[in-house]
């Protein structure tokens, strides 16, 4: 047996041992890699794209229009606390406080694809947070009421009267807002309508005296 053959044989043998060692090290290395949490829902890139888009916002006018027309797929969700919700909220809204978003019973309202869910709070902040969580988890058809209840009050409940120089559309919008406000039960109308109360003279009552009926002669023959 030549010397080169022996060295080659050793090298081959060693290389197999080396390969076996690599396999064991790699298999053992799996224990060392840190556990990483896998996120449910959409990938982060998509989430950021959704976040930057303003498509999620629905204006108070559009919402009012859909509510007035009794849109059957509309579902309003109030993300404020229960105390705030009990004081006032939008009609037919469901209260899901942000902290209780993952409550089993309440979560079923959010994780669905039947309704257009409009999230709202006093402003955009809480509703946006709820939207972000929901969107990241891949929930469908979530919207945010732009400006929240503050905007609702400023536009629907107490809309500013447009200036005289404003366009026709502004006046039409104002008229719509006023009408919507009435629909939602705004009682104190700021525009006072003069109403003439015409008092009609009460017609004289004609008292008719019942005529005495002639008595038919009784009996007789």
């Amino acid at each position: 047996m030549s010397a080169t053959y022996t060295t080659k044989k050793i090298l081959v043998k060693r290389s197999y041992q080396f390969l076996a060692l690599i396999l064991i090290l790699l298999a053992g290395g799996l224990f060392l890699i840190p556990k990483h949490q896998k996120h449910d829902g959409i990938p982060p890139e998509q989430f950021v794209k959704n976040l930057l888009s303003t498509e999620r916002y629905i204006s108070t006018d559009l919402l009012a229009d859909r509510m007035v027309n009794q849109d059957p797929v509309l579902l309003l969700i109030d993300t404020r606390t229960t105390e705030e919700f009990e004081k006032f909220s939008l009609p037919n809204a469901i209260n899901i406080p942000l902290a209780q978003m993952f409550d089993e019973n309440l979560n079923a309202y959010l994780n669905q694809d039947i309704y257009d869910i409009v999230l709202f709070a006093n402003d955009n902040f809480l509703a946006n947070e709820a939207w972000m969580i929901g969107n990241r988890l891949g929930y469908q058809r979530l919207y945010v009421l732009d400006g929240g209840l503050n905007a609702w009050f400023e536009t629907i409940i107490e809309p500013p009267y447009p200036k005289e120089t404003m366009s026709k559309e502004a006046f039409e919008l104002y008229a719509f807002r006023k009408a919507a406000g009435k629909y939602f039960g705004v009682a104190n109308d700021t525009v006072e309508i003069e109403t003439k109360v015409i008092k009609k003279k009460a017609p004289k009552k004609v008292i008719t005296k019942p005529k005495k009926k002639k008595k038919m002669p009784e009996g007789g023959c």
Partner: protein
Amino acid sequence: MGPLIPNELIPAEWNFVLAILIGIAFGYILEASGFSSSRKLVGVFYGYDFAVLKVFFTACVVALIGLNYMDYLNWIDMTQLFVQPTYLWAAIVGGFIMGIGFLAGGFCPGTSLCAVGIGKIDGIVFTIGLFIGIVIFSESFTWLQPLYEKSNLGHITLDETLGISPYLIIFIFTLIAILAFYISDVVRKRVKKVFY
């Protein structure tokens, strides 16, 4: 990122095209490694050639470790991979029959087609037998159906069934593989060499 087709990084229409390309590559590697020779294949049973055991065991361990690292690096989502359902008794009986066929014929289904590809007569005879077997199975399917469908344990995996870490299973499996390689080498040295 992966798996590429379910995540639509590659359109689903490419499924069959890729399957054919991978199949050709697989067949080429089988042929190039000498797996189209029935003598090499049955060498495992007679103890003079353990190439089959080494190749498939190595492929298995490399894929196992590689996939787990790739899963960690987010290159592939392991939860999206298909796990074959376990039909316990069907697998036992089928494995037994397949073992007898393998030993008697000297091929497994894949390598027999490889042998047909290079025009080996024993491979052709084996493949004809394979198709006869398929016809018999199909014709007696109503009779075999209870065995075929019973004992379906679903998409189970070892780590879930035993309740231990998958990494531990991989580690043990790797050790078993290397031990098997070592023992097979010892056996091969003791058995009389066969030249083919």
